[in-house]
């Protein structure tokens, strides 16, 4: 990290673990539950949020001195909505197949609390470059949890990873299915995502006691 000063690199590294937006700040839970049934969807969502959060943070940061305090939330909402619509339209025009794959994710980005949270808590008070790093860092922390949850849900729920049958064929009874293993269909439903996130939070806080609130 010679490229970044120590202070700047903390902006990226902190949200990955000790200040993770999902497990510590408990933001962005809705999308973490909704779209993690497959690993691929998790990765795509993580990347999309990263683009929107980084660009949005920079825009908000540039405008931070002219946005009126009374309507700052509305202004933030309009900026993120406009960004998402532009990304959606550009993808439809120049990468139509990719935009079909992303389908609902693009629209879901607007509803992500992390985005509004970072605009409000960081970009409104910091310079563009630091806001950009903060956006990348928080989106990476969010994406990390999404990918962990997506990995376990797809592996245990469907027996596949990124669509590849890593555990064998459940119908033809090959691989581990030959020994009587069965997919857990419950993993595909949202409540299991909450349980997995709960386990991650538990593991994280028992390793680092400083994170436990009184």
């Amino acid at each position, binding site marked *: 990290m010679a490229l970044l000063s120590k202070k700047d690199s903390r902006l990226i590294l902190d949200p990955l673990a000790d200040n993770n937006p999902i497990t510590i700040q408990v933001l962005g839970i809705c999308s973490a539950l*909704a*779209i993690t*049934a*497959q690993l691929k*969807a998790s990765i795509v969502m993580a990347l999309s949020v990263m683009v929107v959060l980084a660009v949005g943070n920079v825009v908000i940061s540039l405008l931070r*001195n*002219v*946005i*009126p*305090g*009374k*309507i700052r939330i*509305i*202004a933030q909402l*309009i*900026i993120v909505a*406009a960004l998402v*619509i*532009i990304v959606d*339209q*550009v993808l*439809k*025009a*120049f990468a*139509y197949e990719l935009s*079909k794959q992303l*389908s*609902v*994710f693009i629209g879901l980005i607007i509803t992500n609390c992390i985005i509004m949270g970072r605009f409000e808590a960081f970009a409104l008070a910091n310079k563009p470059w630091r806001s950009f790093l903060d956006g990348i860092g928080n989106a990476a922390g969010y994406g990390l949890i999404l990918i962990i949850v997506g990995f376990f849900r*797809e592996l245990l729920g469907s027996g596949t990873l990124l*669509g590849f049958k890593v555990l064998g064929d459940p*119908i033809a009874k090959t691989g581990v299915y030959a020994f009587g293993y069965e997919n857990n*269909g419950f993993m*595909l*439903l949202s409540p299991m995502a909450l349980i997995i996130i709960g386990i991650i939070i538990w593991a994280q806080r028992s390793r680092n006691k400083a994170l436990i609130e009184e």
Partner: protein
Amino acid sequence: MARFTDKNSYTILFSVIMVLVVGSLLAGVAQGLRSKISENERFEKQQNILYAMGVDDNEGTGSVTFIPTKEVEATFHKYIKKQLVIQGDEATEDDNAYLIDIKKEESHANDDHNYKRKLPLFIGEKDGKTFYIIPMRGKGLWDAIWGFVSLDKDLVVEGVYFDHKGETPGLGANIKERFFMDDFQGEQIMDGNAFVGITVAKGNNDPLNERKDDQKVDALAGATITGNGVTAMIKKDVARYIPYLEKLKGAEKNETSESIQVSDSIQ
């Protein structure tokens, strides 16, 4: 310190400017990209129609691979021999029948019961075999679902393509995956002379889909309502074409076709 941004007049001025800037920016982007987007949508429709009749770039049993966008226009005209618009008992040829908006036709027909809706039908030919490709549109769990089904001259399904606007990823969204769509191949939509369609059934004890004459395919776990939507869509939209297809079949065999019973969903 009172900042200039706290004044009411500034707040109003800022919101007016912001709305104007963002509004015109979005309008400009939408206007500038519209022709490109609608062309992409047209190509996609051609790809879907071709996919339903088995013209695709699929390899093995993996994912759906369409004919590349660059070649789709020429391929479409190569395989699709005739495009018909059926209105009542009449069928006319129309080379742009695939652009007919089924959603508009449906709402028009719902508003005005005397309106004879335009039903587009595509007749394709591949390796000397004739395919009748029927467009469909229905409701999933969250939003619209649509698709195409191709039938051979005996009204046996040759292939299907489904798509959706916003079904749940990993659950209902899997209707556009091959492991679901491939099951429809070879299924019969007729039971004797009566139209039954195909039911997306849970617990039909046939997960490998070996029985082709049961009018059933195995459902997707966790996607009951989307599956029911697919069933309803096939029953509703394919039924409208049965009288015409039976007539074609009769004319081809040069014998009077038997009177057919169709389900109550058509009038």
